[in-house]
């Protein structure tokens, strides 16, 4: 195998596929990147069995061939190379691959491509969705998904496609995000799937660096392929019953408060610094004032007040500061609406319309 590419292209391509490289596998070849140089182009692939990524590498193939290089070292080498042309060459019968750039020369152990797993190749009719709106929805919803693998369903995002809208839902059982976004899509009828949140965040990272305006999606029974700008991301889907989120969102709330988005976000961030060791962040609504306070034993306390429109009974409710902050941050509007029923019922964070809802469980306050 012999191919000529540029440092920049190599770094970018490895950066894309690297996120699918298996970090903890007893099979060595899975911590590598497959480089497949064919007469019609070069493709790099990596997989950790959950996500597989295939990305084209710009360059010239002098002699077709394929091999697997260790992902971590290859990336470190690529980044350290001088700018300009890079040659990768493996001579027939050798296991080493030679990486040349300018005056630098690396000889790297490689593994045979035949040891690399066969990447899944979902086939079938795909459909397209608008990229910008899709990614925005991902970025606002996916962070609410759980990282606890003991409940696989909650590590995923429930996505519902129809011709005019995409709806995404994620919850880790402490908070719940729902976003409905108008997106032109060529999907037939409707489609629903639970996609690992990690996949979607990876897709967002990859796709935001690509010029294409649309993402092509090919669903199969247990895999989903996303294609954008020549890059293929194939993900396992999650089996199981997603919680019925509609049941979780109360139909009516007793209190609603409108607050300035940036002001409340920053107050929560600042005061939240002193809500350590699981201490709650307290919100107290009374007499046209919102008081945000927190106290951690052996650390200290913080307090901040801001004027609001509120004339009801005094209400004090506690939250996990990170969860509240994430919810407010996900509302991308000048005014945030906070809705409550009581200190022990979930609170709702939203913008002016109902297209994005963020439900968050309170923490019981001890006094």
């Amino acid at each position, binding site marked *: 195998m012999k191919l000529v590419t540029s440092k920049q292209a190599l770094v970018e391509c490895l950066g894309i596929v690297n996120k699918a490289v298996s970090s903890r596998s007893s*099979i060595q*070849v899975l911590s590598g990147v497959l480089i497949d140089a064919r007469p019609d182009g070069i493709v790099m692939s990596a997989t950790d069995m959950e996500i597989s990524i295939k990305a084209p590498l710009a360059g010239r193939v002098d002699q077709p061939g394929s091999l697997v290089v260790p992902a971590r070292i290859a990336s470190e080498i690529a980044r350290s190379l001088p700018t300009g042309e890079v040659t990768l060459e493996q001579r027939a019968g050798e296991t080493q691959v030679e990486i040349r750039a300018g005056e630098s020369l690396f000889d790297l152990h490689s593994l045979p491509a035949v040891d690399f*797993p066969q*990447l*899944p190749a979902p086939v079938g009719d795909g459909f397209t969705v608008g990229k910008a709106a899709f990614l925005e929805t991902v970025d606002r919803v996916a962070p609410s998904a759980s990282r606890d693998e003991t409940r696989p369903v909650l590590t995923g995002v429930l996505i519902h496609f129809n011709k005019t809208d995409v709806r995404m839902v994620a919850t880790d059982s402490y908070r719940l995000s729902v976003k409905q976004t108008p997106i032109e899509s060529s999907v037939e009828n409707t489609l629903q799937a639970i996609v690992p949140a990690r996949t979607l965040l990876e897709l967002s990272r990859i796709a935001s660096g690509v010029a294409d305006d649309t993402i092509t999606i090919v669903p199969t029974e247990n895999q989903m392929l996303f294609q954008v700008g020549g890059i293929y991301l194939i993900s396992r889907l999650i089996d199981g019953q997603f919680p019925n989120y509609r049941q979780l969102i109360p139909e009516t709330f007793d209190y609603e408060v409108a607050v300035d988005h940036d002001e409340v976000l920053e107050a929560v961030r600042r005061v939240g610094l002193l809500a350590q060791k699981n201490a709650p962040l307290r919100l107290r609504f009374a007499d046209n004032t919102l008081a945000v306070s927190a106290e951690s034993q052996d650390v200290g306390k913080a307090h901040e007040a801001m004027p609001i429109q509120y004339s009801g009974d005094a209400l004090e409710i506690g939250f996990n500061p990170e969860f509240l902050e994430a919810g407010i941050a996900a509302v991308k509007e000048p005014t945030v609406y906070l809705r409550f029923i009581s200190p022990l019922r979930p609170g709702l964070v939203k913008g002016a319309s109902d297209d994005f809802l963020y439900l968050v469980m309170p923490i019981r306050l001890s006094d």
Partner: protein
Amino acid sequence: MRGLFTDITGQEMAVGLLTRALEQGASHAYLFSGPPGVGKTEAALAFAAGLACPEGGCGVCATCRRVKEGLHPDIEIVAPEGNFIRKEEITEINLHAVYRPYEAKAKVYIFLEADSFNIEAANAFLKTLEEPPGHVHFILVTDRPERLLPTIASRCQLVTFSPVAARAIAADLSGRLGVKEREAELIARVAGGNLSYARELATSDTVRRQRDVLLDLARDLPRAGLLDTEVALDDAMASVESREAEVVPEIKAELKRALEWAGDARTKKWLEKRSEDKIKRQQRRLRTQGLQTLTHVFAGWYRDLALVSAGAEDAVLNRDRLSELQTVVRPGGLRAYTDAVEAVQKAEERLRYNVDARLAVGDMFRSIKEALA
């Protein structure tokens, strides 16, 4: 399917059963049980290849090859961490088993030393073992089936591997390793059905020397004084442990290669831990094998003496030592020699459970001396 089990020697029953299973539809759980060194693990990998292979077990395609080499992502090999297969490992398997195989036709979990489930792990495993998703198969491999919880064993189809017949071993040695016929026959007799021990006897000077040391000890034991018996015990135990260092360099080299490919510091630590476990596991295996060799050689020697004393020289195992046997044999000692063999068998029985090896062997020495006094 022909090619799949060609490396498995002298296990016609087991291979027949597995071949039929591949043709007619495999059960979801198997227990591969039999003495050490007869090809259970190789058979497990070959069977897994048959389950995973798109052709039903051609033995030659990329899938079959990678499974047999332990490189296939859908075939997971589970081995004890430290001394046990632990609950954390099983919890992970319970979670991941539900996912479809990545590329193969089936997903196979092979448990080595399957008798080392601790009780929490065993209980966590029961439900998945009984009703795994349709694409999952479990293969439990053990040479100590009596240690398995009955609740686990009863959920598996039993595949019994037997000691390999001497003729099959001899044929294997001359066919595969080019050992001359006479020597192959001698080794096959001496190895007592343990194919991998036979192969080691044929290829390793250390292993041959180990046998010689043990035979000398067995020969001299009846005449040894109290002090000499202690020395003999030291020598015997040293021979049992002599090979434990052998495995270290190879596994260390393997770790070094793996570390070069590893991503972050956490992965490296994990790999180091795994490598340590692997060393421990191999050493445990060698130690068990060493003790088995010890009892096997001792039993063989006194059995041979019994035969010689009864005038049945043709049947002795240690033919290369026939003249020595004839020199030391006591006429009319048949009864005493069979008592000595029984003493060895008793020790063998004890060693199957976790008794202190040195105590068991020391007791065996005393009983042999009493029998032959």
